[in-house]
């Protein structure tokens, strides 16, 4: 038998800003097994929700994850609205869509940067994060803050966009598209990037279905699955097709994300063009009662909330199943047999968000 080395990968690691640990069991430089160890970021959000006021839980939802904070508030607000039978004004729905897509843009750009960093391509990392700052500028201008915006609330949105902001958005989108046009060919054609990503971290379509992959991980394996097609917020009125790649490897997943950036830009443009006039917020009275399941598409895949409320001031149960949790079994499957050098990239290729998983 060959000598085996156990290498702890994480919890403190430069590629991931978040702690996750894999005990990688190596033979030479090949991984024979990977044992994920979780729990470094658990903070008991589901329990906190059962003691906090349900309106305040909204802010808790926002702080499940700092990258997709908008998505979490969106899902939570929609779930509560469904429970209480609130009809959200159409303008608010469009605003929510715009902000959700901005969130997706910044998340994907963030991921692209980290992926470039994972294969040791520092200048590409810097360039993508530079483009990301443009998105953050848009977010800050329209939502008031960079990360924790609190712009979506139960019953609508807290802010409205006036003509000036829309103008600004369109103008900046132009900038962003230019920057992305420069970055895209590097990701898709650079021979060394291809050499590092093509065929690395294979996940066949059958495996992806069996192991329950969601989001870009599933779409990179040829499964056209996108929760936005359910038509929540304003997505039902903006027609679009999910981006699908069939190469089933890290390269495919990377391309899905890069292409989705362009898709998001398109969606924002469409939403701005169609933005209806009117109110953005309706008054909310009473308390939620009953059960609901809410599914939305996060940058990382399908987010599923299960809410149960018994007419009290706080929820009875709030179950959060985040996309990364569904993508962990495919990840463990992919890491086995990989080279040590590829582990950071493969781990990133599902876009791990540990803060989401551990809540």
């Amino acid at each position, binding site marked *: 038998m060959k000598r085996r*080395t*156990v*290498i*702890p990968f994480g919890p403190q*690691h*430069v*590629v991931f800003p978040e702690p996750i640990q894999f005990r990688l069991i190596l033979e030479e*430089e090949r991984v024979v097994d990977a044992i994920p160890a979780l729990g470094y970021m658990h903070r008991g959000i589901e329990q906190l929700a059962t003691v906090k006021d349900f309106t305040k839980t909204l802010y808790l939802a926002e702080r499940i994850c700092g990258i997709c904070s908008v998505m979490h508030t969106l899902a939570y607000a929609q779930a509560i609205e469904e429970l209480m039978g609130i009809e959200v004004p159409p303008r608010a729905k469009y605003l929510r869509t715009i902000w959700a897509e901005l969130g997706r843009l910044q998340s994907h750009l963030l991921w692209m940067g980290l992926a*470039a*960093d*994972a*294969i*040791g*391509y*520092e*200048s*590409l990392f*810097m*360039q993508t994060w*530079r483009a990301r700052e443009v998105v953050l500028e848009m977010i800050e201008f329209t939502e008031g803050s960079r990360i924790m915006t609190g712009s979506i609330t139960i019953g609508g949105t807290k802010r409205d966009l006036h003509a000036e902001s829309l103008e600004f958005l369109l103008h900046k989108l132009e900038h962003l598209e230019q920057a992305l046009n420069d970055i895209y060919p590097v990701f898709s054609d*650079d021979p*060394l*990037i291809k*050499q*590092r990503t093509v065929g690395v971290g294979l996940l066949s379509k059958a495996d992806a279905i069996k192991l329950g992959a969601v989001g870009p991980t599933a779409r990179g394996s040829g499964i056209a699955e996108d929760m936005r097609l359910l038509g929540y917020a304003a997505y039902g009125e903006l027609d679009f097709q999910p981006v699908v790649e069939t190469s089933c490897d890290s390269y495919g997943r990377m391309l899905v994300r890069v292409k989705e950036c362009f898709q998001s830009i398109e969606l924002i443009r469409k939403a701005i063009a169609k933005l209806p006039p009117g109110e953005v917020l309706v008054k909310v009275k009473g308390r939620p009662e009953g059960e609901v399941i809410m599914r939305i598409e996060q940058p990382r895949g399908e987010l599923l909330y299960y809410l149960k409320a018994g007419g009290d001031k706080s929820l009875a149960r709030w179950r959060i199943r985040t996309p990364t949790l569904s993508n962990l079994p495919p990840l463990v499957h992919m890491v086995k047999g990989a*080279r*040590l*050098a*590829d*582990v*950071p990239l493969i781990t990133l290729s599902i876009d791990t968000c540990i803060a989401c998983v551990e809540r």
Partner: protein
Amino acid sequence: MSYPAGLGIILATFLLAPVVGGLLTGLERKVIARLQGRVGPPLTQPFYDLVKLWHKRPQAANRIQIVYVYAHLFFMVTSLLAFLLGQDLLLILFIFSFATVALILGGLSVDSPYSRIGSQREIIQLVTYEPILVLLVIAYYQVTGSFMVSQARSLEQPLLFTLPLVLISFLPVFIIKVRKSPFDLATQLHEPHQELVKGIITEYSGPYLALIELASWYELVFLLALVSLFWATNWVGGLLLAAIFFFAVTVIDNITPRVTYSWMVKFVWKVGLGLAVVNVAWLYLWK
């Protein structure tokens, strides 16, 4: 060479080489930052780093590790010294490899997986570039008829004209030695290494890291001096050649990701070794 001149060279090596190496490192960090659209650290940053590291509390995993660090520095300085004194090229490259081996042994002497795997990769790198260095020496002998470095100065035309392919094949060796991407497999000095924390130097801290940093400056100067050997007849040409090399490496570092070691071995042996062999064979058949 007269004794006073020799003494002067020795002193200059000890005092000037770190200054030059440090400034070059600072310049390189600045250039990299500018290429990435950042402002970058001041030119004198490496010196601040060195002083700071030197005054941190030492922490060593074991004593033998410290011995290896000093050995690494000692061999590095010796190889540069011997080179500037115009000694035997074969011997110099031998000492130079010794310096690397000392670092590898230091990395292997601690029980840390990162450091171990970093050392293993360093060994692979050593095996990868060593044949090219040997070929370089052979080619040098063919042209000058001697192993002595001082011989290159008395040539009629620069080595570059007779050994252009060898110089090109030296490029990957240079990149490997200064630990730049795409071949920064074992460690990186100024950026975090994404696979192995800091690879081979993970377990060194404080003053020992400062010594490794210092050695890397000597190393940079040595490698650049080796490049300038290809135009040793005229010091302007030598400097120019070294500067071109330096900037080429910096740019390459910026536009490439890290490759895997199997790819590196394949590439360096196929292209680098291939070019060097062609050059040597051509010399052999023609002359």
